[in-house]
């Protein structure tokens, strides 16, 4: 599994103990009803004052499913680090993951159940008891039409997903939706169309020698960024002569606006937005035409790709013929090369076509099922079908229409915020008004929760029991248990326990006999244990081991030959992208991207994330519009000029930032700010580009085509220079960042370090 065994892990965490199942034991010791002058007159059992205790759990900040180790002192969480044993992140963690502590200790958390006591949206809530909140909800559910009950949750996996299924089964409604703004619907659809695969495969960036990324910002937000970063680092400099022949991986990024992954790449290639699929087919054409593909179906491919000559593709994409043929040559020669696609390229109206064409590249260079290529994942050990519950834009529109038509009686929302992450044009906010009862389980007063009638606030992920089976997996089944690392701060409950509370009120106990999420989870894991995972000892020691190490895995990889779906080669084509708005009136394509710090907006209430400078611009606390300097110059716009960005569906204001690596007819805006709720750090700051997106959908997957909106920019005549931490953005000959042409110098060459040698004395380390 990971490269650290359990003993090693215990040693690594050194000082403190590694704990299992803290939270509830701690509850009493911390939340004494009276305060003592001398702390801990009765010493709690789980920790020694002054010594850190670490708990392993699962990160809940994005869907990647990294393992975390949380350092606690005296019952309080102090630091989140990656769990070194977890194969997804191997001890590492991104900025957003580490900011999870500010979710836990956020001053704007909902502290207990509340009932709306005024007009919706007024924030006129009054405190209630759990008994009251649950009874009200249960009453409404019992009185509702069966298909008038909707449950809309953030994407959940593992046993919580199973519990939702059981609950809906008892309610007799099939209207369970998971909704994540950034869920890669087109990628799932493309893998289904091309490979007939239900799950996403594992993309082995670590062992690849040549990565062609079509719009996937794999280092920041695509699928599993920490895992990809580990792979990137290894591919760059981790190869010595014993692995991968010491070849330094080459990375090519194709996207209209340079992302973090684009900056990290050796080559950044802007192709016209929406034509990434044409480029993939052009490269595929070249590979086949050059005779570099020798499979049995070579003639099929030749016919299918005949129309995609470099000349035609160059005209469509704006990428030169020479570049296309060079990319094809380099990619085919790399062995293994890997092509990935996503982000803006997948979010055009032709996104699935594009990603299928990217899959074709992988197939043609024969990297399927091989190290450094595309490796298929086995189904997650449990809860795998939850992925089918993911709601795309069409499903959400369906919900909105049903709400408008009065077909929804009760909507339960669990920690997802469509009022922020759906375009205004969707009519979601207005549709909410037509739903008689809305219950929110959110931990925060977000835009959607503001419209609710009953608030049953759930624990944060650091206080709750749960588990997670990361998707996409890492090529073999992995599971991790999420355990409470501190006692609950407030009168909230875990999502699972809230559902089980409703189960009790509705009398579903026969079918769902559990009384706590912990029991439900434990019983679920007993099944995993009994299925024969060949762990020594009884279940209790297995359970404790999983809690202590924070992760469980099975050595079960997928074998077998690669089969692609019939007819897929013959049907290989990419349709032309559609855009909302005429190019005359709306000259720019809006490229709205997930920001490093705030993801889809969920990080905006975390002060650390507000003060984390955007890596590309060093801007904090705001929203801005990135423009090509030449275009801005033509329009008479300067850095910091406030402009009105107008689409067919609305307009927002933001300051211009001159960005050297963006196409002249594209403007880019980060997603994340522009909240009108979500607490003091998020509210009334910046603008939300999702608001003005046109409701264009990706034709095959039904996903919102977030890259398909054209906008116009109008100067307001005002200035509002964004706050930056960075100074001069050019080196001016100072040689601060230096680069070298070659990877290795002749043997025996010693480090000069600007002519002052560092004296390295011989070791004085004693063997321990």
């Amino acid at each position: 599994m990971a490269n650290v065994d359990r003993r090693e892990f215990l040693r690594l965490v050194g000082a403190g103990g590694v704990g299992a199942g803290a939270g509830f034991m701690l509850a009493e010791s911390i939340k004494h009803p009276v305060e003592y002058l001398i702390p801990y007159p009765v010493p709690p059992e789980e920790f020694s004052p002054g010594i850190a205790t670490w708990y392993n759990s699962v990160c809940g900040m994005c869907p990647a499913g990294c393992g975390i180790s949380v350092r606690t002192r005296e019952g309080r969480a102090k630091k989140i680090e990656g769990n070194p044993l977890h194969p997804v992140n191997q001890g590492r963690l991104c900025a957003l993951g580490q900011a999870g502590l500010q979710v836990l200790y956020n001053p704007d958390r909902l502290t207990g159940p509340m009932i709306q006591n005024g007009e919706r949206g007024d924030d006129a809530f009054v405190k209630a008891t759990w008994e009251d909140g649950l009874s009200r909800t249960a009453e409404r559910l019992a009185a509702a039409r069966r298909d008038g009950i909707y449950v809309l949750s953030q994407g959940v996996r593992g046993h919580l997903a199973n519990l939702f299924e059981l609950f809906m089964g008892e309610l007799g409604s099939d209207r369970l939706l998971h909704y994540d703004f950034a869920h890669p619907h087109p990628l799932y659809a493309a893998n289904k169309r091309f490979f007939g695969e239900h799950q996403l495969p594992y993309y082995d960036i670590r062992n690849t020698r040549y990565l062609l990324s079509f719009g996937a910002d794999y280092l920041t937000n695509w699928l599993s960024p920490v895992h990809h970063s580990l792979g990137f680092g290894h591919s760059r400099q981790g190869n010595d002569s014993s692995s991968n022949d010491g070849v330094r991986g080459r990375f090519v990024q194709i996207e209209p606006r340079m992302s973090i992954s684009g900056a990290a790449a050796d080559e950044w290639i802007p192709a016209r937005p929406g034509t990434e699929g044409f480029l993939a087919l052009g490269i595929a054409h070249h590979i086949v035409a050059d005779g570099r593909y020798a499979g049995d179906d070579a003639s099929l491919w030749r016919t299918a790709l005949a129309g995609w000559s470099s000349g035609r593709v160059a005209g469509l994409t704006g990428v030169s013929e020479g570049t296309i043929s060079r990319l094809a040559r380099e990619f085919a020669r790399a062995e293994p090369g890997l092509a990935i696609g996503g982000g803006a390229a997948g979010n055009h109206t032709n996104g699935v076509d594009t990603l299928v064409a990217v899959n074709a590249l992988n197939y043609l260079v024969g990297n399927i099922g091989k190290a450094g290529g595309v490796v298929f994942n086995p189904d997650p050990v449990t809860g795998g079908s939850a992925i089918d519950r993911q709601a795309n834009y069409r499903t959400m529109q369906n919900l909105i229409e049903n709400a408008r038509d009065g077909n929804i009686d009760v909507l339960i929302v669990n920690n997802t915020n469509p009022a922020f992450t759906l375009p205004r044009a969707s009519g979601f906010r207005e549709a909410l008004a037509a739903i008689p009862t809305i219950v929110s389980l959110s931990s925060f007063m977000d835009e959607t929760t503001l419209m609710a009638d009953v608030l049953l606030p759930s624990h944060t992920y650091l206080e709750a029991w749960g588990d997670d089976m990361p998707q996409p997996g890492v090529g073999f089944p992995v599971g991790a248990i999420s355990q409470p690392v501190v006692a609950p701060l407030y009168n909230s409950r875990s999502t699972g326990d809230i559902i089980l509370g409703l189960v009790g009120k509705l009398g579903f106990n026969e079918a769902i006999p559990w009384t706590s999420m912990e029991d439900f989870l434990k019983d679920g894991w007993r099944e995993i244990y009994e299925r024969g995972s060949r762990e020594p000892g009884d279940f209790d020691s297995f359970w404790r081991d999983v809690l202590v190490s924070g992760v469980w895995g099975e050595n079960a990889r997928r074998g077998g030959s690669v089969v692609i779906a019939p007819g897929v080669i013959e049907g290989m084509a990419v349709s032309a992208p559609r855009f909302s708005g005429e190019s005359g009136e709306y000259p720019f394509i809006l490229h709205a991207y997930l920001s490093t710090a705030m993801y889809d907006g969920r990080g905006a209430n975390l002060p650390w994330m507000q003060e984390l400078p955007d890596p590309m611009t060093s801007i904090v606390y705001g929203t801005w519009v990135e423009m090509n300097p030449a275009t801005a110059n033509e329009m008479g716009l300067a850095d910091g000029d406030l402009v009105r960005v107008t689409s067919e569906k609305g307009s927002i204001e933001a300051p211009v930032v001159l960005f050297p690596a963006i196409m002249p007819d594209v403007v880019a805006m980060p997603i994340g700010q522009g909240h009108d709720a979500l607490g003091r750090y998020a509210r009334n700051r910046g603008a939300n580009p999702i608001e003005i997106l046109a409701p264009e959908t990706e034709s095959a997957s039904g996903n919102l085509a977030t890259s398909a909106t054209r906008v116009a920019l109008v100067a307001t005549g005002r200035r509002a220079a964004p706050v930056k931490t960075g100074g001069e953005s050019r080196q001016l000959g100072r040689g601060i960042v230096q680069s070298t042409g070659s990877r290795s110098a002749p043997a025996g060459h010693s480090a000069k370090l600007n002519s002052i040698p560092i004296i390295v004395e011989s070791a004085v380390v004693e063997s321990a």
Partner: protein
Amino acid sequence: MSILDRFVSGWREFRKDGYYEEFDYAWTMTIDLDRCTGCGACVTACQAENNIPIVGESAIDKGREMQWIRIERYWEGEYPNAKLNFIPMLCQQCDAAPCETVCPVTATYHNQDGLNAQVYNRCIGTRSCAVYCPYTVRYFNFTDHHWDAPLEQQLNPDVTVREKGVMEKCTFCVQRIRQAKDHAKDDGRRRVRDGEVQPACVQSCPSEAMIFGDRKDASSRVSKSMNDERAYRVLGELNTRPSVIYLKKVDADAD
């Protein structure tokens, strides 16, 4: 002996070549710019570990940000050939630190591990050290900082919370070094093992761009890494002898 004589003799004594090599450890960090992606995980890791305050938008606008480690970015070329280079910048823990010579109250000094240490309760806030630092990695507390309750529950009890009028900067996570030494002592070892101490930034780095260790141990990972032919020191011509060593980014398409 006059003050000047004492100063000069002290200077000679403490600035002789190899002086710091006689100390216990020589903590060193290497940062591989070919691996660094600029993601900012190190920045947040540092803020969480070292109780770095949130200063707010208006303070940052005045140039009063607090980030012991930051990601500097430098553009090169113009569209469509623009490139962006990142470099994490933190206190370089210089062996010949310009900041140390200028402090009137010796609030910043060199300790036996080769660390450029800062004594908060000795600092009187002249900010001279910040002026002398060529890397501008020293941060001054212009105001007292406040954590909205219950955010203060996250504060690391191993690290002091600084007050108004005090200069602060990266310590190489001295609290972690201290702890590792204590463990070594408890285990009856004379020295800390290679890899036993990792500052928060190094620990978090998703692309494993940073290595931390003792350069006196020739077999340590950091010693090997700093002898890479790509190694260089930022503003090395100033002869400040940083303990942070960068490995050059590889430009595969350069001649």
